[in-house]
């Protein structure tokens, strides 16, 4: 198979047939399950069949794709065609959060939730124009490889690895939690067992075949997840509007929602906590009026998610696997297309779910709610019931603010809301599992490759034989996977909010150095290392400081009023979640409010005209610099990293001629790459 990129490879040539056959097989399987259901086979058995068969197929692909070749293990032999790499990237990208959580966030936040839709798609524009073709031309194995070759060796490589590990580890833990939640719900096992079932599913895909196995399973997983996402949406649209075109028809659902919301308000009702009362209205506060903080937060989140997309190594490394620079560019476009198919359907789910709930449930006697509501009134791993009916005014009638639904239920319960048979619920579970497994695979591989290739091979033992390198990769993959599963099993769903941090951390740590490495020839080694370090430390430090030390944070950046408000907020939190020290500190502030002065950096906290404040989130008082939620922490780190790299480059030794030749080579698709340091060559 040497020179595989040039001659027509029989495996690549028959990919279309293989995956068409696979899609047909999956459809036939769904039909068989549907028939079995009609014949009276219990739901639980059907659930086992769905999960068992899909994981079995992924395992089979993982096993037949096993490999002993380094280039196959790290970059799938660089022969993944643009279209298939696009599908693989799509499922690598779309996690449990996209599949299960996105529609629910849109249900709760209305227009505000569209920041996720925009942020998680637009970043691919940056990937395509700024990075992917050049990283592919550079053509080694990992993102830290590029940093090492461009910025003079191990210092840059090590900083890149640290950022990569921080961002990817929290992300992979969240995926394993997602696998656990789905497995627990549909197989009816405990969360701890579910996590390890999921872990086995992840490992069989990636352990033996590395990137090669992960690529071909991810394509298979994409097909399952997109079918599973679209079918219920089409059926729901047919039920509510009579036309099975959810993406076109939900405009009418949006109109109906606005009417219902106005009706509820006229009747003196308020929306439930966390749900907007004006579904389609942009940038509003709780009172429905324009709110500048809502607007700033919306755009800051869009920015951080986009830049983070373009800096997450498990995504960038997918573009190392295409046969050419040209295909790398096309592949980004295909990736975005396949992601788009799911993301432009998610708001339809949210709108149809909301119409159905508002129309048929609100105002009904609580005793006569439909069965699907009752079946979801069970405890979720988040510590509240999935659907929580709280009869606030005890009149036995369901009011607007008395129906509290966990965001994840919007997708998971759609089949039951629409009155569809269990086979569709099983399909949704299989899709959610495919989404979580594929992302976890990609992340674990990025983590294990950084440790085995970048740390062990490039930094510790340059003479390690191929066989040993691959053994070490697999052992590290196993260790990282078990560590992630252990963390997931212990921390549970409490850590899901950390996922959004991964974007800000990757954005602030890596994006500037990668982009300037290609686009600004004068970027020096020192500048890149300092820039990555500053971006990473500033952002990560800011996130931790504002999240866990919110009172301290506001005492530094906040005005006198903000500090007093924060101290009052401490008292509103359930005492089980606050430490005695924090309560004592807050009490001391409130006991002598006259003595409180503005924070030392309050001038900086108010520099853009929006004051720094705190909000109660996740049972903590969380600081917000300039009123921006820390989910968008990268908004400061990204520009600072760019500025640092540019400034330090001005004052340090310019790159050598050999380095400039190297940059010239990666900018042009044709020809080889003249490395500044020959020892960086791949083999």
């Amino acid at each position, binding site marked *: 198979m040497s020179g595989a990129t040039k001659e027509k490879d029989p495996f690549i040539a028959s990919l279309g047939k293989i995956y068409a056959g696979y899609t047909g097989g999956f459809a036939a399987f769904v039909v068989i399950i549907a028939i079995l259901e009609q014949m009276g086979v219990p739901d639980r058995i059907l659930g086992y069949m769905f999960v068992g068969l899909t994981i079995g197929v992924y395992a089979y692909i993982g096993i037949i794709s096993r490999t002993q070749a380094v280039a196959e293990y790290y970059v799938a*032999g660089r022969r993944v065609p643009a279209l298939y790499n696009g599908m693989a990237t799509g499922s690598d990208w779309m996690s449990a959060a996209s599949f299960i959580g996105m529609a629910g966030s849109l249900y709760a936040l209305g227009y505000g939730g569209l920041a996720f839709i*925009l942020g998680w798609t637009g970043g691919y524009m940056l990937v395509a124009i700024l990075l992917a073709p050049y990283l592919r031309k550079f053509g080694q194995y990992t993102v830290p490889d590029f940093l090492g070759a461009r910025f003079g060796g191990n210092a840059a490589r090590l900083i890149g690895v640290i950022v990569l590990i921080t961002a990817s580890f929290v992300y992979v833990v969240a995926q394993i939690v997602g696998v656990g939640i789905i497995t627990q719900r549909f197989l009816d096992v405990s969360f701890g067992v579910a996590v390890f079932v999921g872990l086995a599913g992840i490992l069989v895909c990636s352990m033996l075949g590395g990137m090669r196995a992960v690529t071909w399973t991810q394509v298979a997983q994409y097909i399952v997840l997109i079918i599973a996402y679209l079918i219920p949406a089409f059926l729901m649209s047919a039920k509510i509007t009579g036309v099975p075109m959810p993406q076109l028809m939900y405009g009418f659902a949006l109109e109906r929602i606005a009417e219902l919301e106005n009706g509820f308000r006229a009747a003196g009702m308020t929306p439930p906590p966390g749900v907007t009362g004006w579904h389609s209205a942009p940038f509003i506060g709780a009172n429905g009026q324009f709110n500048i903080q809502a607007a700033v937060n919306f755009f800051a989140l869009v920015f951080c998610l986009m830049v983070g997309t373009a800096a997450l190594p498990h995504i960038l490394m997918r573009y190392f696997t295409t046969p050419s620079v040209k295909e790398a560019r096309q592949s980004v476009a295909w990736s975005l297309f396949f992601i788009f198919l799911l993301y432009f359907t998610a708001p339809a789910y949210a709108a149809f779910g909301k119409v159905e709930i508002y129309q048929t449930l609100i105002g009904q006697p609580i005793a006569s709610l439909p069965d699907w509501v009752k079946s979801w009134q069970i405890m979720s791993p988040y510590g509240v019931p999935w659907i929580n009916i709280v009869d606030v005014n005890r009149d036995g009638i369901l009011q607007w603010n008395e129906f509290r639904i966990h965001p994840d239920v919007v997708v998971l319960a759609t089949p039951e809301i629409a009155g569809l048979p269990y086979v569709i619920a099983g399909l949704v579970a299989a899709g959610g599992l495919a989404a979580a497994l594929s992302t976890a695979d990609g992340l674990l591989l990025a983590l294990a490759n950084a440790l085995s290739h970048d740390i062990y091979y490039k930094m510790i033992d340059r003479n390690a034989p191929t066989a040993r390198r691959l053994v070490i990769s697999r052992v590290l993959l196993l260790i990282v996977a078990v560590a992630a599963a252990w963390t997931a099993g212990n921390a549970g769903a409490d850590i899901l909010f950390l996922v959004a941090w991964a974007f800000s951390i990757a954005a602030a740590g890596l994006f500037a150095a990668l982009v300037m490495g290609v686009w600004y020839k004068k970027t020096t080694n020192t500048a890149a290392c300092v820039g990555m370090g500053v971006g990473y430390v500033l952002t990560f430090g800011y996130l931790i400081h504002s999240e866990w030390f919110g009172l301290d944070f506001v005492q530094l950046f906040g005005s006198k009023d903000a500090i007093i408000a924060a101290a009052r907020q401490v008292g509103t939190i359930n005492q089980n979640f606050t430490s005695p020290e924090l309560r004592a500190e807050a009490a001391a502030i409130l006991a002598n409010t006259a003595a409180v002065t503005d924070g030392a950096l309050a001038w900086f906290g108010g520099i853009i005209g929006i004051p720094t404040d705190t909000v109660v989130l996740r049972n903590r008082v969380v600081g917000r610099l300039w009123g921006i939620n820390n989910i968008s922490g990268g908004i400061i780190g990204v520009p600072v990293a760019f500025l640092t790299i540019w400034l330090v480059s001005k004052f340090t030794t310019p790159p050598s001629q050999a380095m400039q030749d190297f940059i010239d080579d990666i900018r042009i698709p044709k020809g080889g790459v003249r490395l500044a340091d020959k020892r960086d060559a791949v083999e």
Partner: protein
Amino acid sequence: MPLVESGSAPSNTEAPAVDPATAKAYWAKTSNLMWLVFCIWFFFSFVVHIFAPSLNSIKILGFPLGFYMAAQGSLIVFVVALFWFGKRQNEIDEEFGVQED
């Protein structure tokens, strides 16, 4: 499937693939295209949504236009722009003769 190392690893040639003048002109044109697509990205990621509150007064098939742009409109522009970018960049590659062999 017997597997050995793929032969596609970049070789360390000493001479540049194209002469410096061509490389410079190529990069200027590539940069222009990058900035053009970057501006499209910026406009449809941020600028258009600043006007979402006023756009919402226009309704098409029930969709308030401001909501529609963030939920679908911008996404469609992103997808189309990326396919167009791939095509345009290939044309530039061929114009300067720097496409892969």
